[in-house]
């Protein structure tokens, strides 16, 4: 029977819908899986390894040995602060440097980049510095006056400057406390005599290898950690990179969701058409004694066989598509993508079958319910009872599946819920709008004296139910298309703006109060705009609501470390312009000074709420303030941000230094050397490389995500197509009857055109509203972006609806008018 129906051509549309559906779902899933893996790997490159162990005292040899024993690559490093100097006699210059001694194979993930001179083009380094040599960052080269090839002194050693270090993976994660970088080989550390008992040194072990071995090693090492030791992985640290990755995964998840839902709609429409064409056959079979269950088994079996075949084809097509996609993006994805896991194929099958059962079963149940009477009375339709329950069940299962696939409950609920609401609203709005369009006042308004116009408008009302379903489906498909074309662009632009190309690339720390005026004149003298300079007080958290605080109180690793570290506190009368108030209210000038404004994320991590009293100590004094506001920050904006801000009256008397961030244009690096020479105590951190790296990651993600969007777009178009052909049979028959009774071609085509145009306008307007609303919701709730609705969308949406249905009216009337009425009517008998 499958073969027979296939030959009859009725299953081909449905199968095509299923194949495209499964193909789009799996290709999105396959690619998302691979990109997801690559994202994690690339993020590891920022970490320098898959796993980093940090300690404030030397690591037990057994731990290091276990890394190698676990089959993982191992590298080592240690960090400390020390004075470096260069030159002789009067020309001698010294500078406090952040020294990092690394094993030759550092880093295990990502690369170090070096240049032959400050400002010269850089290139990846094959390995870490060789014994006897050091790499200095640009700032240190300037401060010491030690160009490449000269010698510097570090402790008891003399070392040769071999290169300018422009990028190291771990840099940029937390730029505070980082003095300019000096990197040397681990083997040279002993000779410097700088590392002795009691020195403040941080010891790092790096591990890299297959994920399962990493997990096994992590399991081994975690229980053996001592105080002052912790494991760094992706979950901790690096807020700006994490924010980007999270957002990318949401984009991908959203796309997969949309593709799946749209596919479901296309399948539902396709099945409806199949069922309408099979009602007669079923009635005959009922007459010949087929029971309802037998009919259901027959068609259910047929659909299941078709579904499995289509899923298999779809999976293969999905795999091929993502291969092509990965190939096309090979240049953008700097490294090769990891091989896909089989999970997406399983997901594809499952989604395909659930789609088929959820969306095809309800119409199929109608076939089962067809009364045998239909053989005699063609118009006796099947009872519709029970189908709603089946739809609800199918939708429920699908929703659960989609939430699983999105891997994000909130996103899943938003999309599935939004979809359900949109369908209901679209249907109701379409029904009302179509009936209104058919009303007498509208007819008078448009001067309906041509019979085509009058007839077309009247048909809107007569076909209200069928047309409303069609308009709702069209609006749905169009919403997806608009969402993916216009709103997506807006979202992507907003995302790009979050880390603008003019983001600051230099941070200056340790500015003393008496240096503020000279620093400002330094900027003014060089024609550089004076950047905003923020006061900074370093304080330790000692109590929350009067209760002493210790790291052990927190289970979260990040929380533990936050509590152990000193906080960078700031004070201000006004909230910094790039911050956003999330809860509470900002203080008025002169109000009670015992107030604090806290960043939303850290408040969540540490469990702080509005009204909590936080006590800090700074410079031997303690002070307490109540949390009166929560702020939202953009970590990827690369601006100066503070977790905690207080009114000036609370902190002004504390030991204060200042911090600022600004942008140095390419080629102006010399000005920076002058800055460090004039103010030798300042720490200048070059985050340009880190910013460029983050920017590169974001651009790459955007490209991948855009490509993935195309599939969902395809699914949207499929829905549009299915919706358009869903009433074709009925319209052809109607046109034939009209022609029998003397309608001219112009009348037939005209009345269809009027009907289609009205439907197109309604669908376009609904889709525009839908896309704008969903885009707004997504931007605000999911992506934390500000997104004003695009005026282009408001114009293009309704126009797209009109254009699409005009085209369809033209094509449809050509088809309807091509066959002679006799032929059309004979086919429909």
């Amino acid at each position, binding site marked *: 029977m499958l073969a027979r129906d296939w030959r009859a051509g009725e299953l081909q549309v449905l199968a095509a819908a299923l194949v495209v559906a499964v193909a789009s779902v799996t290709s999105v899933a396959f690619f998302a899986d691979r990109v997801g893996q690559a994202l994690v790997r690339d993020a590891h490159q920022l970490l320098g390894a898959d796993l980093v162990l940090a300690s404030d005292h030397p690591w037990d040899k057994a731990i290091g040995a276990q890394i190698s024993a676990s089959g993982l690559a191992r590298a080592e490093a240690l960090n400390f602060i020390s004075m470096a100097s260069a030159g002789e006699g009067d020309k001698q210059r010294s500078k406090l440097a952040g020294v990092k001694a690394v094993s030759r194979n550092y880093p295990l993930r990502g690369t170090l980049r070096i240049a032959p001179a400050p400002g010269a083009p850089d290139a990846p380094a094959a390995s870490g510095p060789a014994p006897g040599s050091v790499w200095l960052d640009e700032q240190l080269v300037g401060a010491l006056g030690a160009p490449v090839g000269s010698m510097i002194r570090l402790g008891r050693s003399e070392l040769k400057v071999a290169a300018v270090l422009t990028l190291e993976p771990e840099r940029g994660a937390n730029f505070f406390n980082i003095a300019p970088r000096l990197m040397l080989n681990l083997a040279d550390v002993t000779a410097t005599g700088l590392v002795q008992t009691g020195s403040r040194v941080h010891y790092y072990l790096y591990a890299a290898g297959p994920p399962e071995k990493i997990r096994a090693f992590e399991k081994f090492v975690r229980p053996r950690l001592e105080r002052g030791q912790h494991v760094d992985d992706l979950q901790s640290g690096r807020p700006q990179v994490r924010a980007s990755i999270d957002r990318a995964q949401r984009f991908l998840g959203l796309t997969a969701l949309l593709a799946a839902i749209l596919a479901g709609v296309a399948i539902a429409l396709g099945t409806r058409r199949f069922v309408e064409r099979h009602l007669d056959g079923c009635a005959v079979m009922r007459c010949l004694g087929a029971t309802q269950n037998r009919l259901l088994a027959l068609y259910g079996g047929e659909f299941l066989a078709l579904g499995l075949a289509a899923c298999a084809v779809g999976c293969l097509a999905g795999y091929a598509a993502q291969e092509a996609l990965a190939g096309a993006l090979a240049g953008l994805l700097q490294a090769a993508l990891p091989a896909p896991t089989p999970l997406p194929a399983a997901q594809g099958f499952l989604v395909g079958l659930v789609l088929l059962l959820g969306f095809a079963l309800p119409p199929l149940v109608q076939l089962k319910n067809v009364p045998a009477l239909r053989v005699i009375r063609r118009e006796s339709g099947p009872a519709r009872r029970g189908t709603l329950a089946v739809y609800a069940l199918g939708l429920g299962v699908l929703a659960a599946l989609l939430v699983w696939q999105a891997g994000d409950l909130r996103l899943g609920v938003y999309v599935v819920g939004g979809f359900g609401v949109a369908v209901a609203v679209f249907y109701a709005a379409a029904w009302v709008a179509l009936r209104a369009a058919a009303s007498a006042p509208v007819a008078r308004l448009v001067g309906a004296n041509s019979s085509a116009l009058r007839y077309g408008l009247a048909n809107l009302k007569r076909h209200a139910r069928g047309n409303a379903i069609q308009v709702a489906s069209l609006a749905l498909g169009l919403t997806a298309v608009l969402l993916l074309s216009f709103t997506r662009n807006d979202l992507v632009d907003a995302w790009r703006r979050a880390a603008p190309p003019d983001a600051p690339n230099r941070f200056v720390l340790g500015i003393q109060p008496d240096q503020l005026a000279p620093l400002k004149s330094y900027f003014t003298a060089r024609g550089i705009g004076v950047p905003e300079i923020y006061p900074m007080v370093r304080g330790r958290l000692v109590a929350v609501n009067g209760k002493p605080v210790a790291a052990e109180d927190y289970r979260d690793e990040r929380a533990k470390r936050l509590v152990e570290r000193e906080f960078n506190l700031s004070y201000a009368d006004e909230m910094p312009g790039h911050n956003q108030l999330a809860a509470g209210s900002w203080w008025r000038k002169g109000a009670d000074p015992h107030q604090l404004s806290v960043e939303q994320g850290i408040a969540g991590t540490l469990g702080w709420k509005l009204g909590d009293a936080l006590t800090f100590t700074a410079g031997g004094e303690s002070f307490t303030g109540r949390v009166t506001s929560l702020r939202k920050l953009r970590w990827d904006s690369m601006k100066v941000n503070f977790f905690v801000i207080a009114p000036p009256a609370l902190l002004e008397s504390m030991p204060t230094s200042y911090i600022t961030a600004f942008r140095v244009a390419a080629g102006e690096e010399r000005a920076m050397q002058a800055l460090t020479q004039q103010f030798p105590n300042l720490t200048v951190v070059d985050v340009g490389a880190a910013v460029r790296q983050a920017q590169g990651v974001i651009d790459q993600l955007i490209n991948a995500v855009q490509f993935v969007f195309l599939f969902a777009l395809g699914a949207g178009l499929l829905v549009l197509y299915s919706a358009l052909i869903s009433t074709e049979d*009925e319209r052809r028959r109607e046109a034939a009857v009209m022609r029998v009774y003397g309608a001219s071609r112009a009348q037939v085509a005209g009345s269809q055109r009027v009907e289609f145009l009205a439907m197109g306008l309604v669908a376009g307007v609904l889709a525009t509203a839908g896309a704008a609303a969903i885009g707004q919701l997504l931007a605000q709730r999911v992506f934390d972006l500000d997104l004003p609705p695009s005026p282009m969308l408001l114009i293009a949406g309704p126009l797209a609806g009109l254009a699409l249905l005009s085209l369809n009216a033209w094509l449809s009337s050509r088809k309807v008018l091509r066959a*002679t009425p006799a032929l059309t009517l004979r086919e429909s008998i």
Partner: protein
Amino acid sequence: MMINSKALIARGIGKTVRSGDRDLVILRDIDLTVDSGEALAIVGASGSGKSTLLAILAGLDTPSAGTVELEGANLFALDEDARAELRGRTVGFVFQSFQLLPALSALENVMLPLELAGRHDAEQAAREVLARVGLAERLQHAPKHLSGGEQQRVALARAFVAQPKLLLADEPTGSLDAEAGREVIALLFDLNRAAGTTLVMVTHDENLAARCDRTVRLEAGKIAP
């Protein structure tokens, strides 16, 4: 005033369709003349080409050869639209499977031909004809809520509402049980007589054919002698 007392003149009608890779002859060299006011039955076995002939006589299908003169106009010398206009003005049609539009009420189905002709009294005229076929109480019913006999009566009302000169009926009782069939036929002949309409009816029912003035028998696409 009728200038030509012939309602319909068909000359040398042939119809060949391509089936697979060979030609299938459905009609061959049919000559047929129907006088105004005459009732003609076309009978024949299934597949003898009766329905195709009827469709060609109405201009719903095009012949491979031959001409049809309808009310003095050469049907296939006209373009599609002129043919439709002529048909709307002069021909009523009744189908075996009713061919009512499911989205339209009984009243709207009957109004359709008049609306297409741009008549403003469509509703009034439709109401009157529906009353004559005994469906005054069921005007707003959708076809699926009417019995088969009622649906065919709506179709009859639709066929007669524009007061056609020629009524073409294709197995009008073919989808009905005997009782409903008898009622519809009685109604058809009543309306026909009252309006003085020319009737061409395709049927395989010899009793029905006997009620017509003349019977033409088709055999394998040709008129049997």
